[in-house]
């Protein structure tokens, strides 16, 4: 079957199987910035934005996104470069496998709640697992991106 949606501001049409999930559809179309980390909707590395909201792309049936907007890091390079700058500055980027999904979550946070408390930041990004960094450097980078602490 076909599904029409808007990917990174471009109209696209994908030929898909009904049981296909968005993660696999995107990677099949060479959007390798979206990654698979698990099969149980638990790790968050597959996060993309669906109508500007962070979603687990492994858990969204591609058939269900007719007419919706999908954003990956490839679609918002200037913002991602900014986030990457703060991550680099805080040493928060290690292996990088979780970074693209996390960056989209952070971008969505800034749009949804531009001045969150520390608790609200952690609450928003807690579903993006990281095994390398220990989370603290990421947190400091996020605060700087949001315009908070030094």
């Amino acid at each position, binding site marked *: *079957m076909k599904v029409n949606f808007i990917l990174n501001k471009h109209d696209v049409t994908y030929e898909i*199987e*009904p*049981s296909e*999930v968005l993660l696999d559809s995107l990677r099949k179309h060479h959007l390798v910035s979206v990654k698979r980390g698990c*099969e*149980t*909707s*638990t790790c*968050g590395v597959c*996060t993309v934005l*669906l109508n500007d*909201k*962070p*979603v*687990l792309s*492994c*858990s*969204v*049936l591609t*058939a*269900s996104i*007719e007419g919706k907007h999908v954003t990956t890091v490839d679609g918002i390079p200037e913002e991602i470069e900014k986030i990457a700058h703060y991550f680099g500055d805080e040493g928060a980027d290690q292996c990088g496998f979780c970074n693209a*999904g996390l960056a989209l*979550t952070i971008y*969505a946070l800034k749009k949804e709640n531009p001045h969150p408390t520390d608790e609200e930041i952690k*609450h*928003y*990004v*807690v*579903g*993006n*697992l990281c095994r390398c960094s220990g989370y603290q450097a990421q947190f400091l980078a996020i605060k700087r991106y949001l315009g908070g602490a030094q």
Partner: protein
Amino acid sequence: MEIKEYVKPHSLEEAYLILSRSKSNTILGGGVWMKYTKRQIDTMIDLSNLSLNHIIDHHDEIEIGAQTRLRDIEVHPSIQSIGNGFLSQAIGSIVGVGFRNVATLGGSIIGKYPFSDLITAMLCLPVTLKFYPEEVMSLHAFLEQKEKHHAILTHIIIKKTNGKGYFKKVSNTMLDFAILNVACFDDGKMKIAIGSRPAKPILAIDAMDMYNQASQKDDQLIASIGDCIIKTIPCADDDRGTKEYREVLAKTYVMRGIKEVMSHES
């Protein structure tokens, strides 16, 4: 999970017709848990054309469409104002925002997941479920039902009531399933629910009666209620905790919950 066909009906009537045609036809909730299954699904029925994704605050009740995403419910001001935010807190403790922007309230309730944090909290509130074809029942009654339900869950109604709420999830990490979860809500009548025992959430009826019928709501009463919890709430072993440990958690957090929400007008 294999799906043969994917349809988006334009009416509940049409949706119900397709659903009734085969046991292998199913309604798409969020889809988060569904892909775990090795199920063969003939027809996946997507209800997004049917305007079931909304939260409406009527004066005396809040109406939530079954297709509404958990995250939207969590942050809605009307939901946040219930029981000083204990329902929002319970919903917010489910995985992360990426998960809650996919999972729907309908899917979470129909699944009757034993570890469900939001079912435990909702059991303490006056919650009614509306189905198509025409059927209305309380959340409590739905959970007690043994047979599989064939109607389509369309709306969840929370009757507004003033009171304090409490929710506690005990877990190894902040993302894990609960070893046990506890909710209390007191709007004049104390409600206590315990879930992930590891069995599904239930109301602690005996403990609630003990509290609501007592004339003196003092520390001694609360201690007796703690003991009552251990006697009347069945817990069991699983990989996350033993029966005995769950009993201690249930007693401790019910007592703490009651102390936090009890209205001081006895």
